[in-house]
Each structure stands twice: as structure tokens, then as C-alpha cells.
């Protein structure tokens, strides 16, 4: 009987050590696949709305964290929206240019963004109007200093826009 107990103890000790080691290995392996520090550090982009030559009604695309950012200065005909970025008398749509369905880049066709992958459509404010996208285009975190946007740095303006769009 005492023999069996000793073996049980050995068996359970072995299993416990193996379980802890196995779990620790999995954590390490998981972290090896995380985005690298250099990738995380390179996450800021600045855009000066005054110097990029925006034409109302024609969006421009910028690159931030490997993703496209749409910036559209709205024309007078385009409906105003609480989720717009308002600077002086101008209204802008600022959004991550990835379809909220599966991440393709929608293309600007006259007055809507149309996604080639699964047929989703977004209007000038970035709201989904057709197809599978479950929600409007996402507002990126950014801060505003005069006419300069710093993408990747959460500011009051982008927070307000995100809240309005939620």
C-alpha cells in the first residue's frame, strides 16, 4: 500500500511539473507570434489638412499602421453628421479605409465607397448602406493640432467622433 502511494505521489509530481512547464511553453510560443516592438513603435503618422490639397468631395488616402486612412472634405450637398471632424467651417470624414466586413479597401465611386470583395457600400460619412458590413467605417485614434492630425495618438476630437458613431 505504501508502495502504491509513493508511486502515485511520483506520478502526480511528474504530471504537475510537466503541466506547469507545458503551460509556460505555450505562453512563450504565443508571445513569439505577437507583433514585434518595432512594429508597435512605428504606429504614428501625421497629416496636415492645410497642405495636402484636398478637393471637397474627393477623398485622399494615407497610410497608417499598414492600413489606408480615408480623409474626405465634405461638399455642401453632403449631409452633416455628428461623427464628422469639424475644423472651422469645414467638415471632414476621417476613417480607416478597410471594409468593416472583412478588411478589403473600398474604392470611391462618385459619392460612395464600394467594396469589391463582397459588395459592401459606405456613404460619404462612412455609414454602411448596402451589403454585409456590420457597422460604419472605423474612426482611427488621432489628435488635432491646428490643421495637423497625428494618427495613432488618441485626442478629444477622435474620441468624440468615435462616441458619435458608436
Amino acid at each position, binding site marked *: 500500500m505504501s508502495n502504491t502511494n509513493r508511486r502515485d505521489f511520483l506520478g502526480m509530481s511528474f504530471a504537475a511539473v510537466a503541466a506547469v512547464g507545458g503551460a509556460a511553453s505555450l505562453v512563450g510560443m504565443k508571445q513569439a507570434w505577437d*507583433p514585434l516592438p518595432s512594429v508597435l513603435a512605428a504606429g504614428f503618422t501625421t497629416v496636415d489638412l492645410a497642405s495636402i490639397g484636398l478637393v471637397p468631395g474627393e477623398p485622399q488616402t494615407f497610410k497608417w499602421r499598414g*492600413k489606408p486612412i480615408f480623409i474626405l472634405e465634405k461638399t455642401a450637398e453632403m449631409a452633416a453628421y455628428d461623427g464628422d471632424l469639424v475644423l472651422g467651417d469645414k467638415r471632414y470624414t476621417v476613417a480607416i479605409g478597410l471594409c468593416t466586413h472583412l478588411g478589403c479597401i473600398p474604392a470611391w465611386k462618385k459619392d460612395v465607397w464600394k467594396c469589391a470583395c463582397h459588395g459592401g457600400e459606405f456613404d460619404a460619412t462612412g455609414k454602411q448602406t448596402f451589403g454585409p458590413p*456590420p457597422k460604419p467605417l472605423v474612426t482611427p485614434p488621432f489628435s488635432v493640432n491646428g490643421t495637423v492630425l497625428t494618427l495613432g495618438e488618441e485626442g478629444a476630437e477622435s474620441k468624440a467622433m468615435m462616441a458619435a458613431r458608436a
Partner: protein
Amino acid sequence: MALINESFFSAEGLEKRLAGKKFWKVMMTEYWIPKDINFLWALGVVLATTFGILVISGIFLMMYYKPDTALAFDSVNYTIMQEVAFGWLFRHMHGVAASVVFLIIYIHMFTGIYYGSYKKGREMIWISGMLLFVTFSAGGFSGYMLPWGQMSYWAAAVITNLFAGGSLEAWGLVEWIRGGFAVNDATLTRFFMLHVFLLPLVIIGVIVFHFYTLRIPHVNNQDADDIDYDAEAEKYLAGNKAESKVIPFWPVFLSKDFAVLSVFLIFYFFLVFNNYNFAMDPVNFDPANDMKTPAHIYPEWYFLWSYETLRGPFFDMLGMKAGDIGLIIFGLAQVIFLVFPFLDKDPDILPAHKRPKFFIWFWIMIIDLLVLSVYGKLPPTGANAWVGFGATAVFILLWVMLPIITKMDAKKRGAL
């Protein structure tokens, strides 16, 4: 252990050490196959051969391929295609085999469904086969990323996005899979590892397991005849070959297999040399550009049917978002075939033409998968979107109907 005194450097010495003759007998000359089969039973060996072609052509591609976003596109389209002797041949062999292997897998799969080769002891054959389908699909997807063209990049972007789980918004998981905010260099290199090492290793393991699962229940035959293998084998070994219902795997079964294999290889090499373009999408000859989605993207033909179930529901219903419904159906489509043996409620093994309602189910399923595949390639606009929606609905309905109609067939026959 019995000590062996025969010299290592002699035939009988090696035989004593390895028991090769015994092994050959168990695996080959006394592994029994029923006589009542047709050419569709040869597709397992055709698949094993195609996998061999993929491995060999892959080894040669790997010696010049560079898994780096700055170098990958040119290493394929310049170095391999233009400089390496026969590099073009290895690439076309690899690409065409990757496509054709799915054609044979689908035929192999539907042969099993038609003849009921997945129940009453053969469940594990079916499940291990479906695991091979899943691992081959992962192999196809990860390999498609490697040339780093526009289709490579955007297929990777869309498929990794699926892991966000729609409204679940699991972006942390997506960024973990990619190793960055978007598909990037880390993504390419890790999928290269999966494609050339981990997945082939798993596939080889599952192939061995798939072969092993056949051993105890044996392969099915055209009339699902329940054969007493010991008795029939005895007849064969006693020289009563005409009367016996079975033949040995080697040399009798394989000689027929090789005939089918030869026809397949003629077809395969015809494609490799004369019609490889179907496996080489022109859009993928533009280098990857993360700022521009191609005007129209679609997966390779063998993923089209499940891709169409993803985008089939294009409007919100039942209080759910269209994208979420598509994702749920898509997820279901990936795993539903795995549980086929448990949805077929007919207790008898019979070919589909002896199960009237199941026979109709079988052909509607094939037609529906073809419709889904055709519309998966067309732009999802106007009437196309509705056909896709309808075919997706039929797909779901067929699975709901399966337990019911198989039970009805059995009742009519008096088996239930």
C-alpha cells in the same frame, strides 16, 4: 531478444533483423481489397501520388524562394520562372497539382458519400479524411500567400480577418495571427513555415492514420456487401482466385490503380504543359500592394463554394448582422461534412441509387455546390447576390433534411 548470428551483410541477416518479408506481406500481399469496386476506388493512390508531386516540386521551389516581402515576388517571378533550370516547370507542377488535388479530393469525398463508406465501423476513415481536407485547405491557403502578388496579399488580409469573428471584434487575435496591424513581413514568414514544414508534417501524419483506419473495417465495395475477409482470403490463398471475393493490395489491386493513375497523370501533365493558366491568376502577377484592393477578388475555384456561403446572406435578418450570419454559415460549412456519419440516420450501408430520397439529396447537393462555386466567382451585385443567397439557403436546408430523408428511406425499406 533472440540474438541474431547471421551476418549483417547478407540477405537473410537483414531479413532476420528487419522482418521485411513479414512487413511486406502484412502491408501488401495479404492486405485484402474487395473485387467489386470501380475506378473511383483508385483515387486514394492518385491522391497519395499527387501529394508526392507536391512535396518534390515544393522542395525544388524552396531552394530559390525567399520568404521576405521585399524579395518574395521577384524570387518567384524572376529567379524561379526565368533563371532556374526548369524552375517554371516546378512552379507549374506545384500550382497545377495544388489545384487538381482538390478536384480529386472532392471526387474521392463524394464517392464515399455516394456508397455510404462512412458508417458502421468506417466513421474514423471519414473523419480522418475530412481532417486531410481541412489540412490541405490550410496548405493551399498558406501556399497561395507565398508569391506575394495582389491576390496573395488580399486573400491573406480577408482570411485572417475572419478570425475577428465579425461582431465579436477579436482584433487582438487577428493581429496575433498576422504579427502586426496588417498583413506584413512577419505574416509571410510564419505562413511560409506553416506551408513548408508544420502543415506537411501534420498532413503526412494524418495520411498514415487515414490508411490505418482502413485496415480494420476494410474498404467498402460497390454493393456494400458485408465480406468475411478471413474466409475469402483463405480461398484466394488456396488458389481459388476466381471464386474469392477479394484480391491482394499488391500486385493485383495496385496494377489496376496504376492504370487509373496513368490516365490521371496524362491529364495532369497535359494541364501542366498546355493549360497551366487556370492555376496562375493574372492578378497575382501584380506585386502585393497594401493600399489598393484589386477591383474584384475571389479565391481559387476549390474554395468558391464555401466563400459564397460567407457572402450569401447580404442583408440583416433575425436580429443579426448580415456579415455575422455569413460567418456562422461559413464556419458551419467548414465542419459540417465532418459529422456526416452521424447525420445519416439510415442503419444500412447502401449505394445512393438504392436509397431513393438520399439519391435525390446527393445530386441536389452536388448541383448546389456547383451553383455556389459559379456565383462565388461572379461579382456579388444585383441578381447574382440573390442567386448566392438562394443557393446558401438550399445548402443549409439540405443539411437539415439529411437526417429526415435518410430515416424515411430506411423506414420504407423496413430497416427502421
